[in-house]
Structures are given as C-alpha cells and as structure tokens.
C-alpha cells in the first residue's frame, strides 16, 4: 500500500472516531456511536498490520489474543459500581503499553545497530512516552487500589511530599534531557520510566476517594495527550487526531468535576482534603436536641400524601447496593400517582456520570435522571425529598463563603427548599469533607437511620400497608 492510501484510511478512521463521540450526545444514538468508534479502531489496526512488513506475526497475534481475552473478561465480569476501577485499569494499560512499545523500539535500534535511526524526534517521543506512560500506569494502579479498597482511600499525606514531588519532577526533566541529547544508551529511558512511575504513585496517593472523579478524568486526558505526542513525532495523523480528541474529553471532564466542587485542580491534587475529620463537639453543637428521627411508617405516610417526590442518591446508596430496591420503591409510588424524579449531583459516585450508570442498571428510565441545574428550581414545589446515602452534596454550609469550610462555594442540590426532607443514613457521621451537616437539624428534616437497602425495603412494606 502506498503511504497516501494508508493516510486516507487513517483519515477515515479519524472521521469515524469523531462521529462516534458525536453519537454520545444522546442515549438513542450512543450505541451506534460507540460501534462507529470501534469500527474506526479496527480499520486503523488492520491497515497498520497490512502496511508494515511485519516480521514476526506470531508475537502480535499472541499479544492480541491475550489482550482481547483480558479485555473481554474485564468488560463483562465487572459490576457497574466498579466501573471507575475498570476505566483506571484500562487507562493504566494504555499508558504502560505506549511506554513499553517505545522502549522496545529503542532497544531494537540500539541492538540492531541502527543507531543512525535514533533521531531527536525519536528520543523526544521516547522521553514523552516514558514520562506519561510511567505516571499514568502507576497513577492508575493506585487509583484502582483506592477504589477497590486495597489501599486506604483516605488521603495518605507523606511529610515533605511537595518537596519530594518537585525533586522527582526535576529528576524526570534531567533524565529526559539526557535521553534526548544522548540516544546511544537506553539506560536513561528505563530510569526515566522508573522515576515517572514513582511520581505517579506520589501524585495519586494523597488524594481521597471522593476526589477520584477528578483523578480518573485527568489520567484519561494524559493518555490522550500521550497518544497525540506520540503521533506528532511519528508523524502519524490518526494518532494525533485521536489523541487530541481524548485529551479534550479528559480535560473537559476534569474541569467540570472541579467546578462541581468549586475547587481548583491544584487544590484537588495537592490539598489532601478529607484527611482531617471534624471534632465531635462541633457536630454536637449543631445537632444538639434538634435532630428528629423518624420511623419507616411515618415516612411512608409522608410519601403517601405527596404529589411530588425527588430522590437524591449518593454513593452510599450504591455501596449498599440499594439502587434496585429504590427503583422498586419509586415504581410503587408512581403506581399510586406520585411523581418521582432522581436528582443527580455532578460528583455523585466515583467518576463523572457514575450515578447515572448505576441507576440505569437498576432499570430507571434515563428521562427521570435530572442533573443539578435542571432539578434545582423544582425543589420548591416538591413535597418530599428522599436523600439516600448522600451528604456533602446537600450540605447548606456550602452556600457560606467562609474559607475554613472545605466545601464553601460548592454548588449543591437545594433539597432544604422542599416541604420535607428525609435523610436515609446509618448515623450522623460526616461525609467526605469531614464537616457536620446542618441540614440534619433543619426544621423540615427527618432522619431515617439504617442501611440504605434495608430502609428502602422497610419503606416499601410500610407504603403497601398504608394503602
């Protein structure tokens, strides 16, 4: 095949990627969009395989078979709750693959005696791949560990970590310069990959579980930028286009997540929010004698009389695997003529849009899943709000501008404007931000203590009995 023909096929693949992402603008067209994207990928791979005079086909076939097997198993075995872990793993694979591939290319050129092939372009690409590949591989691994509960998901703050990180970054820079200036040894490449891997661990380990949506989005944009940089230096158009599309997606989502928490990226990455938990006396001050606990029967009465109910699900609901029972409860209420909607905060869950996936899995129609801007004006006309396993995203303290409040200025769901708010929660313990929630002590608020799943089942029984 002539290089022009190959580039034309790459162009078709790039167009398919763009149509694929465009399809995601509506649930109806999304499945087709994803298929278009995968068709583009297949085309790019087949064309590449046909183009190069590939010497050892066996290794490639073996790699593809093993990789595909791992991919299929992961994709079908994973639960929707663990989706962020899976995206982290795939992301780590992508980063690791690009670093290893460039490492292999470098070794071949050195051992095969084609030192003249090692141009500045080549070494710049190699340095970039080692750096981003290393950081995203171990960063994703730590994110996976935290999400899976293998590593403590509270921020782990190592003394002097900022100094250490700056030092590691400087070492990476120095090694990159060495690699670019002297392409006759692969030693600098492998040390660079090693130090970058250490940096990846150091960057993610101080970040708490609830800030993971930002980390996952950011790591995703890294892998896009890495692919684009790779393509830039190899002068491969499909790599450049696909890489910048992914980079843009990751970047937009990172920015959206930061805005949804009213925090800068620097603050999310380096502040270690969630490490300190509020003192108990302070919470007792706020709650003292003003928290009203209700029984499932009382709440069932409220729900029975309501015309409009909004359910606010939080990650706690997903952890308790309560979404299926909550859907049954919503259906039961609707069969009694109650209007039920779900209010989704942008950072609900452990990755952008995670809560929507969890609820869709429980067969809740997507038309009922309302995002924050859409639902906030509706709380005023709502009879009962059911907050299940959410805390910080409904904390009215976020409206204060006092900088000592970690969530100050964060946009929240205005649940306190509803006629009554029922909070389903195991205890009065604070959320991720570590601060007390005055909503629990509000006049129109009722606490319904218990495990989300059990409470939802009790509510079902109680609503049926009331009828």
């Amino acid at each position: 095949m002539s290089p022009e023909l190959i580039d034309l096929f790459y162009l078709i693949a790039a167009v398919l990627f763009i149509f694929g992402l465009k399809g995601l603008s509506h649930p109806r067209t999304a499945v087709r969009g994803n298929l278009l994207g995968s068709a583009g990928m297949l085309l790019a791979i087949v064309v590449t395989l046909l183009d190069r005079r590939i010497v050892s086909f066996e290794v490639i076939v073996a790699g593809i078979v093993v990789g595909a097997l791992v991919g299929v198993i992961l994709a079908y075995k994973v639960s929707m709750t663990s989706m962020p872990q899976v995206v982290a793993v795939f992301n780590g694979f992508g980063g690791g693959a690009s670093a290893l591939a460039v490492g292999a290319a470098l070794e071949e050129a050195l051992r095969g005696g084609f030192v003249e092939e090692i141009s500045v372009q080549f070494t710049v690409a190699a340095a970039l791949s080692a750096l981003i590949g290393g950081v995203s591989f171990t960063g994703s691994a730590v994110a996976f560990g935290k999400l899976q509960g293998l590593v403590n998901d509270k921020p782990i703050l190592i003394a002097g970590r900022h100094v250490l990180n700056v030092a590691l970054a400087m070492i990476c820079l120095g090694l990159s310069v060495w690699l670019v200036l002297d392409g006759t040894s692969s030693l600098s490449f492998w040390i660079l990959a090693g130090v970058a891997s250490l940096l990846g661990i150091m960057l993610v380990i101080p970040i708490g579980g609830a800030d993971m949506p930002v980390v996952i989005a950011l790591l995703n944009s890294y892998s896009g930028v890495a692919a684009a940089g790779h393509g830039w230096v190899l002068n491969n158009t499909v790599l450049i286009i696909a890489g910048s599309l992914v980079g843009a997606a990751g970047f937009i989502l990172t920015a959206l997540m930061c805005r949804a928490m009213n925090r800068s990226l620097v603050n999310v990455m380096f502040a270690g929010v969630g490490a300190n938990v509020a003192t108990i006396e302070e919470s007792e001050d706020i709650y003292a004698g003003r928290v009203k606990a209700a029984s499932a029967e009382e709440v069932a009465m409220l729900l029975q009389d309501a015309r409009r109910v909004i359910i606010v699900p939080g990650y706690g609901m997903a952890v308790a695997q309560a979404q299926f029972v909550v859907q049954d409860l919503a259906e039961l209420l609707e069969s009694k003529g109650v209007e039920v909607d779900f209010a989704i905060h942008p950072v609900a869950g452990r990755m952008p849009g995670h809560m929507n996936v969890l609820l869709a899995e429980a067969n809740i129609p997507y038309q009922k899943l309302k995002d924050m801007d859409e639902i906030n004006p509706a709380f005023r006309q709502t009879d009962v709000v059911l907050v299940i396993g959410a805390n910080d995203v409904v904390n009215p303290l976020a409206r204060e501008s006092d900088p000592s409040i970690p969530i100050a200025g964060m946009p929240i769901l205005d649940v306190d404007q509803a006629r009554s708010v029922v909070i389903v929660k195991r205890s009065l313990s604070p959320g991720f931000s570590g601060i007390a929630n005055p909503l629990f002590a509000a006049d129109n608020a009722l606490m319904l203590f218990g495990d989300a799943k059990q409470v939802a089942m009790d509510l079902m029984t109680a609503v049926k009995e009331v009828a």
Partner: protein
Amino acid sequence: MEVFVAALTIFVLALFVGFEVITKVPPLLHTPLMSGANAISGITLVGTLVTAGVQLTTFTTILGFLAVAMATANVVGGFLVTHRMLEMFRRKD
C-alpha cells in the same frame, strides 16, 4: 519544519473539534464518554504494532508482546464495557 507545522495544525484543529463534540455530551453519558474515549486512546496500539513487528532479541520480543497485549486489552475492553453501559440506557427508550 514544514512537517512540524502541518502536524501542529492537525493537532490544534482536532482539539477544537474535540471541544465542540464533547461539550455536547450530556452529564447523563459522561461515564460512557470516558470509557469510550479511553478505548480510543488505545490507538497507541497502532504505534505498538509497528514496533512489535521486528524482533531481534528475546527481551524486545517480550516487551513487544506485553505492549500489544496491554494495548489490545485497553481497546477491546474499553469498547465492550462502553457498549454494555449504553445498552442499559437504550433498553428503556
């Protein structure tokens, strides 16, 4: 230099297309967007195929094999898991 500017042009224009297309994706589909985009970033597989083709030593063969396997897992798994999620949204339409 000519090649460099041409590549830069493609990069910048693709960024604009990316921003235009992706800002239209509703928050409802942000998770599938992320896993789908992640699968697309597995395009580095194309780069790995080129390097895995020529094997001179056992060491580079192992590296090439690992790179191809990891990149394939990223692509195949990414598209499949996205498909699985999108099917859940579609069946209630």
